[in-house]
């Protein structure tokens, strides 16, 4: 039986799971965990017998917050059809907020796209909704996620966006070596292993910071605010 985490800590991430989106998904997950929340996606279930929609509904029901990235709602060059899973799951989340009980009505959503106002051409019902853009930039995405979580949750303990973005670069720098020592392929980590590695890395960083008498850890060579690369990926 899997643990579910508490409703007010759960953030449902509704996004593509393809290889091209992976750098963005991994950045979102890092930001969510560094803000003190749980990152939840349909990828966390290993029971293939369970219906996919059931998995998604279960996570939506147990999450106060959700991040919906509709940036990949575009025509597939092979099938000539758009992918509608993300807008569909966004609709499920909004319906849950609208028709659910008092707890469900506290739901908060962040909607993301890669360019401003594009959504108006395929989801005009969302007009008037505050939709944030990320230009497919993981660093910008981290700041967007952090700023939204800070406002939506009203938690003042959430670190600044650029602090998290910089920490993410440090994490990426150490990930290949960490995975090598754990006999893992860092380019093909499964979701549950990745979330564990992120949480343990952040905890260890906090612990080392305490051990060094609250002095900030020194910056790493080659890791700075202006470096927007994500390492090896």
């Amino acid at each position: 039986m899997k643990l579910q985490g508490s409703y007010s800590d759960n953030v449902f991430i509704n996004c593509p799971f393809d290889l091209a989106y992976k750098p963005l998904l991994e950045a979102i997950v890092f930001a969510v965990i560094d803000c003190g929340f749980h990152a939840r996606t349909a990828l966390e279930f290993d029971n293939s017998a369970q219906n996919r929609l059931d998995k998604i509904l279960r996570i939506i029901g147990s999450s106060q917050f959700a991040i919906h990235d509709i940036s990949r709602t575009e025509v597939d060059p092979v099938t000539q059809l758009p992918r509608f899973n993300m807008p569909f799951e966004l609709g499920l989340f909004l319906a849950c907020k609208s028709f659910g009980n008092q707890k469900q009505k506290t739901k908060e959503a962040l909607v993301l796209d890669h360019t401003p106002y594009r959504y108006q051409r395929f989801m005009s019902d969302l007009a008037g909704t505050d939709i944030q853009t990320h230009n497919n930039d993981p660093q910008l995405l981290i700041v967007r996620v952090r700023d939204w979580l800070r406002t939506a949750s009203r938690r003042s303990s959430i670190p600044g966006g650029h602090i998290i973005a910089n920490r993410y670069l440090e994490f990426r720098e150490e990930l290949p070596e960490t995975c090598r020592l754990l006999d893992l392929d860092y380019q093909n980590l499964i979701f549950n292993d990745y979330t564990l590695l992120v949480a343990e890395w952040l905890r260890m960083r906090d612990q080392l910071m305490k051990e060094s008498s609250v002095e900030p850890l020194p910056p790493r060579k080659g890791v700075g605010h202006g470096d927007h690369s994500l390492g090896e990926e």
Partner: protein
Amino acid sequence: MHEENINRVFSYAMEQISAGTDWGLKLDEAITQAELSKVLDLLRTGIREKFSDQDKMVLDMVAERLLGEPVFRRKVKSPPTESALDKNRVRKVVREVMTSHLTGKSH
């Protein structure tokens, strides 16, 4: 009164840290949870800029023991999902790699 309570928390916390006290066992003896909750509520509402980083760390330790959540620094939570990885092994390796990066040693 508020300042007095805050000072009381600080004095007590610093004293206990110096003495290496087990926080979970002894904190409630010196200040009641209701009193401390009141102080922490005040801390959440706008006077936090008065505290040094050391003060904040101390208050977070107190708050985490009594309220389950730190006040200043967010708490990283364990994922609610199952991983086959051995947590202790992960911690050991993460620490090893992080320390070697900080000291500039290659692995």
